[in-house]
């Protein structure tokens, strides 16, 4: 069986952009920040949180993303209940955490586990920017590291979706150290031959962009995502003028050679499947023909 055969039955049929109903009420709709059209919320969810008018990628809830990637019933979550020990006893942090958990319906800023897509199994992490802006503290660092080690041990491909404001302020230097910890784990995993696919979504910044997010063997980004080390506001303050449109967005990074592929959300599952498939075919024999004809 050749590569073409494997992919032949793999044309995932995505629904066309869902049709839009006129005269929707403000209660049922949200305004697209890009085209300013009112978009019906229910339809938006059905359409993978992509605006039906202009293709703008809204924030996608973590579990919707996992559902989008994974075959039904083939997601197993790891370390679901891990919560921070508040390492530097930061004032009012416990209240912040409590509010974040309520708002995001999640205990921390990343969900990790394994997913199944057809004939493959992959280790997966999806960051949750609704939980304290997806910031990385000890729990995020620990979950990403434990997942990476697990993927290495089991010989699984590793897929991480990032969305983060950077290192978490309330855990001080402990947060910064998670950059070193996750980077070391990824490096070890890659040295052992693992394939790491990093998928950058809006926004991926600071300590997350400067650690595991940009260490992918293959780096994918969703369209128009903000991807940077220093945020636009900090840069504007430093240089004393405003930034050109599109600066630090996926397409800009692509032009500067920082990412491999800018991919629309509705093509991501297919793309990730194909990349993983190619990496599992490393040792496939070419059966017909030899060098001497």
């Amino acid at each position, binding site marked *: 069986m050749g590569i073409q055969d494997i992919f032949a039955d793999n044309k995932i049929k995505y629904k066309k952009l869902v049709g839009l109903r006129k005269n929707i009420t403000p209660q049922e709709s949200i305004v697209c920040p890009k085209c300013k059209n009112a978009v019906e919320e229910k339809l938006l969810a059905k359409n993978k949180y992509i605006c039906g008018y202009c293709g703008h990628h809204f924030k996608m809830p973590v579990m919707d993303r996992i559902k989008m990637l994974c075959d039904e019933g083939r997601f197993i979550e790891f370390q679901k209940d891990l919560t921070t020990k508040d390492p530097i006893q930061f004032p009012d942090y416990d209240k912040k955490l409590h509010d974040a958990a309520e708002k995001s319906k999640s205990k921390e800023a990343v969900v990790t586990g394994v997913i199944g897509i057809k004939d493959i199994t992959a280790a997966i992490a999806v960051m949750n920017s609704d939980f304290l802006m997806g910031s990385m503290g000890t729990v995020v660092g620990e979950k990403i590291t434990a997942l990476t080690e697990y993927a290495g041990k089991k010989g699984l491909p590793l897929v991480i979706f990032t969305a983060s404001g950077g290192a978490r302020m309330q855990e001080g230097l402990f947060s910064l150290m998670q950059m070193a*910890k996750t980077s*070391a784990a990824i490096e070890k995993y890659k040295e052992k031959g693992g394939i790491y696919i990093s998928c950058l979504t809006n926004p991926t910044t600071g300590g997350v962009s400067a650690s595991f997010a*940009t260490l992918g063997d293959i780096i994918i980004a969703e369209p128009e995502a903000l991807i940077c*080390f220093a945020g636009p506001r900090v840069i504007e303050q430093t240089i004393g003028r405003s930034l050109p449109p599109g600066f630090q967005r996926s397409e800009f990074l692509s032009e500067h050679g920082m990412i491999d592929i800018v991919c629309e959300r509705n093509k991501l599952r297919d793309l990730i499947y194909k990349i993983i498939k190619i990496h599992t075919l490393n040792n496939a024999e070419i059966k017909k023909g030899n060098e001497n004809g």
Partner: protein
Amino acid sequence: MAEITSYERVERARSKDRPLITDYIKALFDDFIELKGDRLAKEDPSILGGIALFHGMPVTVIGHRKGRTTEENIKYNFGMASPEGYRKSLRLMKQAERFKRPIITFIDTPGAYPGMEAESSGQANAIAENMAAMSTLKTPVIAVVTGEGSSGGALALAVADRVFMLENAVYSILSPEGFASIMWKDPSRAAEASEVMKLTAQDLYEYKLIDRIIPEKGLYKNLDKSLKASILKLKSYDDEELIGRRYKKFRTIDGEYKPAVL
């Protein structure tokens, strides 16, 4: 003696009279030869690197460079490195590994440079690659935080087997001004931020995030002694043990969890 506040430590760490990397090199090493350039795009003078002898032993020295005068500081961008600086550092570290030279880094930076060009050239990736590569270097690495160690720009040179801090150095997730600006939208509350951030050598030693505090009375002598002892210890490990220990050192920074085995 009255207790020194965290913000006083910040002020001391930033003081104009504080030794610079060039002073440490002069005091601790012989025959320093500066090596320049990342071999990709350019030379970033805000990171200084080179080879030298330490008690007759070849070593690689890398660190953030600040200036004494305004003119120098502009030239060295106040110790705020660009991606090219981190890539130069990576090149020199890989070179040190080939020749089995221990690496000593000196950390003193307000952070990685937040400029347009730095972003376009991949600041995030340059820092990430530096940390990842350092985690598996088959040669001893010792990092010394000498002044202000702020953000990923500091950590990019500090994924080391031993992390020392000078008595009045600070090491933090970002500058106290940046922290106050993010948390309270008010950079003028930097002093208050300094207290809650836990950024002094004394705090961080307590948290086991650093290995040693270097007293500043008799600074060079103390640092020389500590560097020598640690290099000798680290040189006694074979490659596998050295890297294994370094991995574990960062793996177990977790704010009280036992590392999970899934």
